[in-house]
């Protein structure tokens, strides 16, 4: 018995909510950790106390953010088992390896080193402390590497085989997991997205100090480091994004067509829609504003390439559902060991489509007499929601463009040494702190909704992966998560605003604006 549609929808909502909430904290941890390394490197090399203060102050904000990252991260690990039990059992052998390696390498390292970072100042040699900070950054970033490797495998499963005896995926090559092209490109994309989040965070808060005319020297030094990192980050995130597009066009045609709102395969050179109104029921765009040639350039970096339209994909999937059903029907007999050699040969011929057969399970419980109408309905489910995917992608790219624009100005002003004089630019930086967060969130929406209806592409449909539990449990937990996360979010924002507002004076060194001058430590 499959879980009811309500359980599936609530489980999906809960997972999306908790994952997106978690990812409000991840990119800042990723990006800021490298800033802490850079600032502490400046301190150990030059010995200037201002750099140590910078490390400690931004470290304080890092810690507030990190605490919530930990809380919401453990949720993710538990949630696979809680709400996606069938999926978890199905992929533990494969996906589980990357997730476990994440826990062993990354999480453990960063969680241990954060204690050293805060409690060992002055207790150990400054080089040893610097080493701990580097390990903190490596730990944070190894974490996302493993998670993205696991997620990329869900987008495009390879290095694994399906075993009907156990109804699980078996891993064939662990290293292959990590050197997968799609995974590596997406890791690059997300690492630099983290750098961008750290950059915009530091730039925005530093701009605030300059606008309020306090700690100007401290803020300018922070900004100079951030502009340098930021230019590299924003260009790299764009480069990896573009490469990711090429990969998606090749490996995930249904997602690509949804991102670009393409319903029928266009003849090359294909036009690209800047804006459109995709209508899922009619399988066409009600209007679109398009530019000739551009889509071929985006999807293949040439004028001769094209992408498959959703209608053609649906037609192809219909055949695959029919083929998969041939294999699926034989499972009970094979389980009993009564299948003839001929039937086993049939199974082998059609087993690559067995996941498509599961799509029909929604419409037919017994799976023995699936009607053509049910196959058509299941095939229509086999593409993602085009409207949401189309616009999520465009919101992400628009945010990126804003950051490019701001950073190019930043580079120019930084080179001329006039950063503190451009009020409008500083105001823009302050209000643009949320921009990289919006980009990351919609990037994930594009990637995850664009993969639907699959939780494991072409192998396991999302609704099949949910736990067989009752609606009340999931409804209750979703409400609980919403309430808890809201409270945590309010507390974390309040603390962030409080400490960003006090600024480096919160270190209590007596060297910064807004505190009584102390003489505990002399200026170096």
């Amino acid at each position, binding site marked *: *018995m499959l879980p009811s549609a309500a359980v599936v929808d609530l489980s999906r909502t809960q997972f999306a909510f908790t994952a997106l909430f978690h990812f409000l904290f991840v990119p800042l941890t990723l990006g800021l950790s490298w800033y802490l390394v850079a600032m502490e490197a400046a301190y150990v090399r030059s010995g200037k106390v201002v750099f140590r203060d910078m490390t400690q102050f931004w470290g304080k904000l890092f*810690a*507030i953010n990190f605490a919530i990252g930990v*809380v919401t991260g*453990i949720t993710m*690990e*538990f949630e*696979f*088992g*809680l*709400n996606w*039990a*069938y999926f*978890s*059992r*199905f992929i*533990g*052998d*494969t996906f*589980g*390896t990357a*997730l*476990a*390696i*994440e*826990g*062993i390498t990354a*999480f*453990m*390292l960063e*969680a*241990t080193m*954060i*204690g050293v970072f*805060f*409690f*060992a100042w002055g*207790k*150990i040699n400054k080089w040893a*402390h610097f080493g701990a900070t580097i*390990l903190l950054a490596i730990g944070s970033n190894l974490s996302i590497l493993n998670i993205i490797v696991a997620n990329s495998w869900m987008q495009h499963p390879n290095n694994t085989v399906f*075993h009907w005896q*156990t*109804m699980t995926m*078996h*891993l064939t090559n*662990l290293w292959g997991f990590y050197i997968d092209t799609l995974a590596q490109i997406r890791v690059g994309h997300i690492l630099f997205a983290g750098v961008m989040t750290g950059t915009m965070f530091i730039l925005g808060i530093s701009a605030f100090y300059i606008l309020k005319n306090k700690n100007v020297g401290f803020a300018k030094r922070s900004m100079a480091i951030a502009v340098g990192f930021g230019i590299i980050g924003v260009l790299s995130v764009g480069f990896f994004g573009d490469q990711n597009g090429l990969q998606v066009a090749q490996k995930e045609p249904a997602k690509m067509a949804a991102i670009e709102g393409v319903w029928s395969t266009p003849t090359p050179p294909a036009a690209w829609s800047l804006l459109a109104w995709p209508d899922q029921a009619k399988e066409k765009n009600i209007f679109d504003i398009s530019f000739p040639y551009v889509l071929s350039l985006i999807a293949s970096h040439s004028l001769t390439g094209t992408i498959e339209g959703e209608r053609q994909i649906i037609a192809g999937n219909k055949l695959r559902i029919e083929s998969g059903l041939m294999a699926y029907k034989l499972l*009970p007999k094979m*389980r009993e060991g009564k299948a003839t050699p001929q039937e086993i040969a049939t199974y082998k011929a059609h087993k690559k489509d067995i996941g498509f057969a599961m799509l029909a399970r929604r419409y037919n419980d017994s799976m023995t007499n699936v009607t053509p109408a049910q196959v058509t309905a299941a095939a229509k489910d086999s593409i993602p929601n085009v409207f949401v995917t189309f616009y999520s992608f465009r919101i992400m790219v628009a945010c990126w463009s804003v950051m490019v624009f701001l950073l190019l100005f930043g580079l120019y002003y930084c080179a001329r040494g006039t950063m503190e004089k451009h009020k409008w630019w500083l105001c823009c930086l302050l209000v643009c702190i949320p921009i990289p967060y919006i980009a990351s969130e919609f990037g994930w929406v594009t990637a995850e909704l664009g993969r639907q209806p699959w939780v494991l592409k072409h192998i396991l449909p999302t609704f099949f992966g949910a*736990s*067989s*539990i009752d609606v009340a*449990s999931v409804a209750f*937990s979703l409400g*609980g998560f919403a309430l808890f996360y809201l409270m*945590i979010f309010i507390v974390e924002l309040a*603390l962030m605003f*409080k400490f960003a507002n006090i600024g480096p004076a*919160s270190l*209590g060194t007596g060297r910064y604006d807004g505190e009584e001058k102390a003489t505990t430590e002399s200026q170096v």
Partner: protein
Amino acid sequence: MMGFTDLQFIWWVLIGAVLIIYAATAGFDFGATMLLPFMRKESDRRVILNASGRTWDGNQTWIVFAGGGLFVIWPAVYAATFSGLYAAILIILWSFFLRPPGFDFRAKIDSHIWRRFWDLGLFVSAFFPMLIFGVAFGNLLQGLPLSFSPISLRSFYHGNFWGLINWMGIIAGVVAILMALMHGAAMLNRRTEGDLKRRMQRLFYIFGVLLLIVFTGGGFMVAYAVKGYVLVHSPANATLHPLSSVVTRQTGAWFASYAQYPWKAAAPIVAYIGIVLAMITLKLGKGAFAFWMSVVAIAGVVATAGTALFPFIVPSSFAPAQSMTVWNATSAQYTLNAMLYVTIPLLAFILCYKIFAYWAVWRGKGTLDSKDVAANEHEYY
């Protein structure tokens, strides 16, 4: 590649070891934060908070290791228990939510109500997870009402949260809480000074004696009141296909299995020796040694529960033939082997940097009092 059954056994040992490390490290943080709200002076509370706070994050992470290990090595166990024990797991998870803010945010606002709120939060975040871990072990000994569907092997749980509340479950829960309290007192005795240190010594004796009594009582329950399971036959190469074992149930079967596997007896013996030695060495004023004996005691207690179940991981009370055992609940051979090669060097690396981290944060006199906290007002928790 190594032999399949060897790998299955090694992973059973490794996952057990990780759970023991979790109980022995996060265990003292749990104990310390359970004592926290009962201290009258704010200065004492801050000493406790900082004695535990500088390493708590790294200690807590062993649960992520254990969770990841369950996921990859015993996917069916992870999937069936987490979805089956939905409410219990949510209680653990939601209690954990209070922990990082409790440590990180408490000292950041100087208000009595704010700080007392987080004291309570830290208590909840230690008490409920420990209780549920114990209750879960108590129920594993009785089996969980699990079954699998024949074709797709989907897991179903035929019970609810209230079914977990029974005498064996409660006794195991109390054992877990006393264990954490004893260990927390041992750690605080080692890491604090003066009056607080003396109070922790007294508390250690109280919790240690109570633990001895309840742990022994739990043993009698298992011997005379709990229906255990016996694995009569397990099909060869039964990986992840938990439908065809031959299993019988009888009262006292867990105790009877000690005759079949005599090495199991080492676990309770180690537990008793650990507790007694910790008490003696504490009396002699050897705080650090007593702490390590407390670690040994915890290893013994956790191992007693884990080894009693062997070769079962999760027996099924609903369909005993579908019980998950060390031999049928693991992933395939390639994954077990690859994960072993990855995990062993990484564990060695983790050990090195853990030693470095403890050394770094406790460098100097190695203890903490209220003057140290006052001197580091802006850095400490």
